[in-house]
């Protein structure tokens, strides 16, 4: 039995199919989780995909947190379950208070879609274990409200606790700390692109790893992140689940080669 990873489908989600495709590439069985159902269908991990949940009316992610599925996701997270929010999913997690900080309008006040580079700040998180080494990863961003903000005390705390998972960087891997750095696409404070909760089992990430999973798309650096989630989920699912059928190369090969 392959490891089952859920992808929440909110009305307005538009990266749900892409996330499922990326999971399948890593040998997981993607499971669609409909927003109106509180049932998580026995998944070992959950992705909150990108898009415009509930039209992003009011504020990005503000309405999704009240959906039936999110109550179950919150319980799942509280019990140590793995949850990765990508783009709008990150906004939903932040609105729900499941990860620290908030995402506000890009410093440019314009939607930005471009390829960025990010570097992992730690390699032992469930969301980075398959990255292998501290190396720059190329993948796209596409958002209007992706500027990560938090008060200084929070920022200091998450830095101290190792909860900053990814930072935007220049192509060579030098972190783009400053909000005005050209390599920081949205003005995020301290160049933060991804953060984790205190337990390390819930993460939000603004760039789209699921859009960088095949060379034909320009980069497959995102596979390492998806593979990390799949591998960690498989490990948590215990002996019942394993990862099969990966065709990944390089670091992802190492990641998906592991079975629980």
């Amino acid at each position, binding site marked *: 039995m392959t490891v089952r990873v859920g992808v929440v489908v909110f009305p307005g989600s*538009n990266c749900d199919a*892409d996330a499922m495709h990326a999971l399948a590439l890593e040998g997981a069985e993607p499971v669609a989780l409909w927003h109106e159902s509180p049932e998580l269908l026995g998944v070992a991990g959950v992705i909150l995909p990108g898009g*415009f949940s509930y*039209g992003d009316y009011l504020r990005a992610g503000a309405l999704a947190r009240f959906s039936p599925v999110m109550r179950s996701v919150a319980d799942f997270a509280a019990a140590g379950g793995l949850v990765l929010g990508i783009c709008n999913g990150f906004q939903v997690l932040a609105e729900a208070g499941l990860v620290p900080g908030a995402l506000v309008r890009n410093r440019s006040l314009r*939607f*930005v879609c471009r390829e960025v580079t990010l570097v992992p700040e730690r390699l032992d998180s469930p969301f980075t274990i398959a990255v292998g080494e501290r190396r720059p990863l190329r993948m*796209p961003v*596409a958002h209007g409200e992706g500027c990560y903000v938090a008060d200084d005390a929070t920022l200091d705390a998450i830095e101290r606790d190792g909860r900053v998972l990814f930072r935007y960087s220049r192509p060579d891997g030098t972190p783009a700390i400053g909000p005005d750095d050209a390599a920081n696409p949205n003005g995020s404070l301290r160049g933060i692109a991804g953060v984790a909760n205190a337990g390390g089992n819930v993460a939000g990430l603004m760039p789209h790893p699921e*859009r960088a999973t095949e060379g034909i*798309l320009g980069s497959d650096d995102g596979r390492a992140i998806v593979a990390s989630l799949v591998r960690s989920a498989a490990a948590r699912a215990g002996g019942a689940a394993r990862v099969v059928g990966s065709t990944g190369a390089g670091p992802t090969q190492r990641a998906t080669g592991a079975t629980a």
Partner: protein
Amino acid sequence: MTAARDPEPLHRRLGVSDDELDAIVDRLGRAPNDLELAMFSVMWSEHCSYKSSRPLLRTLPVGGGDVLAGPGENAGIVRIGDGLAVAFKIESHNHPSAVEPYQGAATGVGGILRDIFTMGARPIAVLDALRFGDPSDERTRHLVRGVVGGVGGYGNCVGVPTIGGELVFDPSYAGNPLVNVMAIGIMPEDRLTLAAAPGPGNLAVLFGSTTGRDGIGGASVLASATFTDDDPSKRPSVQVGDPFAEKLLIEASLELVERRLVAGLQDLGAAGITCAVSETADRAGTGIAVDLDAIPRREWGMLPFEVMISESQERMLAIVEPRLLGDVVEVCERWGAPAAVIGRVTADGHVTVVTGGIAADGSPADGAAVLARIPASALTSDAIVHARRAEPPARRRAAPAPGPAAEPDGDLPERGMDPGAVLLALVGGPNGASRRWVWEQYDRHVQTSTVADATGGAAVLRIRGTRRGLVATTDCAEGVSGLDPYLGAAMSVAEATRNVSVTGARPLGVTNCLNYGDPTRPEAFWQLREGVRGLGDACRALGLPVTGGNVSLYNESPRGAILPTPEIGVVGLLEDVERRAAPAFRRDGDAVVLLGRAGPGLGGSRYAALAGADPEDGPPTLDLAREAAVQACIREAVATGIVRSAQDVAAGGLATALAECAILGGIGARVEVAVEGAPAVELFGESPSRIVAACDPADLDALRVLAAAHGVPAERLGTVGGDRLVIALVGRGATGAAEERGARVADEVDIAVSDLAHAWEHGLPRALGEDA
């Protein structure tokens, strides 16, 4: 506008002329009532009826073995193998975008997407072809910000990548910008769903948003009359878009199609319910009885005519067998798109609007009143057709004869201009610079199939589950079109298809958006007639079907008419998406080769706009047989792997094409250009049927042999390498003729690639006064 202040009779106020009223009376056998007149006014608008253009459009080549649906359907559909078909269409939203740029552009995207999924295809890409006035003008900037924001705001949210398009500035568009949007969809062939209402007794089900007062008369008031600039009284005619509702509508519609729950499907766009019921009934040879009271509304007190012609967005009409109604309602409600039965298919061939209920056979219930009863065909296929008068302008430039450039050309580079400076100005100018500032505001990667966005030419998508790829582009040679509308349209087809062919893809078909002026003005109608003739001739010569399109007339403002703008959208098929070419130079030492040969004529070029051309200098000529040969040659060269990169020579000429290859590749080149006539023609002339390719020197002979087999000139210009672009001019015409007369002529372009890249990257935001 009240009756008291306006003594005009109702029909004229609705944009219906006296002779059109006579024709309505003729078709009805009686005078129409006010509701019927309102329905006719929108359906007989230029936008819905094509009453001026229909006789012209009939001349276009439409057939072809792989075409599953052509003009007259919501979108053209072409079979591509693997059991799949691709749907595509381009449409205008010009006047709404001029009045309210954000919503006008957003609803333009929404409307064209509905045309795609109405056919049963999942939308996979959007391209936007935009034209505005002077970029330094504050009003232009307002329009650009709004339109780009609206295209992005809608496309990004609905989850369809915007992968390409155009942005062109020309003073003629100042009072009347153009917003043309193309959408592409893909589907299994057997999902093809037609917008017809077969089977008397079937139900007409409206689903999606409710009906309100927004967009009343959009088709007639806005789209089909000459434009008086920024008239706030027309703002209520602009619809308001909700991409979130559209996303739900896409999912609901595609599930209905996939589960075969509908007998027909039609989106609601221009002319709203009136258009949807009359077109579906007419296509099936049936009628539809509409139960006016059953139409869900978002406002109180709407009059029957408002309900019937409202252009409220995000609505769909499904034709449903009664036994499947429960399933249809369940699907729609699960996707948050409430459904209501609003009528029944009848056998009487009429659109009947009833208040007070209808019986199971579609007849009015006891005590019900019939508010309107019109033959469906009278509203659609039998709508009025006008024979417009066409007259060329009194004085027309002759196209130059093929051969060496005429003497006036020879004067151009002597005007104290350094060709390097000209190149920098073109590459960094508002029309030549990178469109990154625009495209970064569009999600180009959602659906994870974008192999290449249009940064370097045509956009490429992979078709998941196959080895194949789709290539898409839009193009228009409006500069040439302004001088010679026949040539301009043919040139537009040539450029758009060449854009696709340089990637290695085989063009599948052409969709077009014909943006012209007031058809009652003989010169404007002549431009349209010539444009359609050029479009048809070019498509025939290149063996391509016209699969659909849209005509946008009355593109005039008090500041004058736009350049006639036949916007061409092309979709092509790559048999192997891994085997494709892009413009970027890739390797030191590669040979730079020009396929095709420059011809004279700087008229209509970017160079002429920049430097001023001699008014007697016409546009370049187009040899369609040569064009077909050049395209076939490059497709074969890419498919066989002989060339490593390829870029077509278009706006800005050979020098600009070389600069783009260098900028995109981050590597320079050293080339020599032999000048026969005038350097400006060789460097910056925009004569068609030319491609710059780079190949391994070991493959050069193979490329030459291939070119010879296609009858295409192939000349090695130089070599890729270094960090500068050097274009040396050699030959008799380089300096000699001018120097003999004592003129100073720079004979070489020599610019660092980084300088070209800087100009190219920053040109657009600088022109618009924005941050980069």
